[in-house]
């Protein structure tokens, strides 16, 4: 009940504010949105199966597609360093229960 009231109110205000001021928000930057979502989704889908190491590296590289300024050799090195550092921090430093490598390789 409370929630429905809120939804109605929010909706009314939304419609009202759309009609009252039509300031130009500027162009949406689709590349950023796509790349960031792709990278996040890949991370979420893979981390349980492929482990932290591969997933982080791959998502990092996908994220790097976000700007045309990327230099690939540089990014690969940074991605490798970052992956190692995050494994050290989260798995060894904070001793969280993550699988580092793909399941099939662990057996």
């Amino acid at each position, binding site marked *: 009940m409370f929630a429905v009231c*809120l939804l109605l109110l929010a909706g009314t205000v939304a419609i009202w504010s759309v009609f009252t*001021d039509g300031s130009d928000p500027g162009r949406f930057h689709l*590349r950023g949105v796509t790349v960031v979502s792709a990278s996040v989704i890949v991370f*979420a889908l893979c981390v349980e199966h492929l482990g932290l190491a591969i997933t982080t590296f791959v998502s990092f590289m996908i994220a*790097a597609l976000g700007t045309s300024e990327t230099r690939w050799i540089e990014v690969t090195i940074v991605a490798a360093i970052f992956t190692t550092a995050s494994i050290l921090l989260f798995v060894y430093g904070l001793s969280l229960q993550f699988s580092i490598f793909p399941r099939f390789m662990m057996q």
Partner: protein
Amino acid sequence: MSDLVSNLGLGFSLALGFQNIFLCFIGVLVGTLIGVLPGVGSVATIAMLLPITIGLPPIGALIMLAGIYYGAQYGGSTTSILVNIPGEASSVVTTLDGHQMALQGRAGPALAISAIGSFVAGSVATIFVAALGVPLTKMAMRFGPAEYFSLMVVGLIFAVVLAKGSLPKAVMMVLFGLLMSQVGLDMETATARMTFDLPELADGISLAVVAMGLFGFAEVIRNLEGETSREILKTKITGLMPKLADLKTASPAIVRGTILGSLLGVLPGGGNIIASFAAYGLEKKCSSHPEKFGTGVIEGVAGPESANNAAAQTSFIPLLSLGIPPNAVMALMVGAMMVQGIVPGPQIISKQPDLFWALVASMWIGNLMLVIINLPLIGIWVKLLSIPYRLLYPCILMFCCIGIYSINNSTFDVIMAGAFGIVGYWMIKYDFEPAPLALGWVLGPLLEENLRRAMLLSHGDVTVFVTRPISAGLLFFAFLLVVAAVLPSIRKRREEVFVEA
């Protein structure tokens, strides 16, 4: 008075323990490190680092988070002065004179005066927190559910009135936050609400997920627009320490900024942003040469920086004494406390005095560390600033992903945060403030719980909110605030405050 001293003694004896002082040190250091990175404000910093503190004991975790907060704030000022990019809203005004000073080769004194001002302000504000904590808690103990409900209404209305940008949009954000906070199982009947039959939503959406999405991912997407390379100060920073004359002109500004900031910080809804803007305005009015502001006068850095830091400290007061977070950062602190099994509210100070006093003492220690760490390390921060964003943002993104995943081992949370990132980007584009949303989010469950309790106690009689004097007073105050915000003359002034400074 002697109570205060003995309590502070207890606090210092705890906070000075080896582990806590170490955590405070790490917090301030890491907070500054991440806060210096452009495009990462203090909310995003705390959200990113929240998962790291989960494994710590409660006192240590809170001390570390508080340290991260001051560090991030100071880091934000550093980027304002050196690269003219404010790390967050509260250091926008610092760019005006701070960056001008840097261009004139006086970056050292600007950074130093900002650290000194912050330290003085932090010390005074710590005493303020310690002195006000107990009486406020005593008052809060007399509050029933009805009073709490009304108090939160006041808080939410403050958040709307003090938010920048259009009023209807701020109202919308608060309502959206309240709505989203209702997702999950009903706390009394355990009926699933708005979960769309997804078991992952039964526990509700955690604040860390929202915060990382709205303040972390969304910022990254926005920064990816256009050119990411930026102008970095080429001149070498020489002569760190300010001259005696600088200190002389800056000290009254520091005092004024501290007082103003301590008072405004208590207000809900971005008190430290208002404080820094107001302090800049005040300095301009008090100055004998107002026309020089904007060209690199040291008062223009000292005033707002002190105010902003004082406000950052005193914003802990409503959280610790009433259990009500006044801004998004404090909302995250509530999240951290809940994870540790601490329920924020007036009972903390009586039931867990060690926690309260250790936190207060650590505030002062944290501020001292800021000065000690930052003045010699400025060179390193400057180097960090020259890391190009093209390498930085994938790191930020991945760190957030791993962080969210580590909280619950839930990939669903990671995707949710990504979705909030896109929503947040849309909100930035259309000038919606995410801060009121976060506040609504945190206050939502508290608001509902107290509303229901009040209704139970009064057997469903709604008039309970206006027949109890404190509650009625609070609601009347809330009503006055609404009227004030809608009145055209005040509305104009409100816009001026933000535009002018």
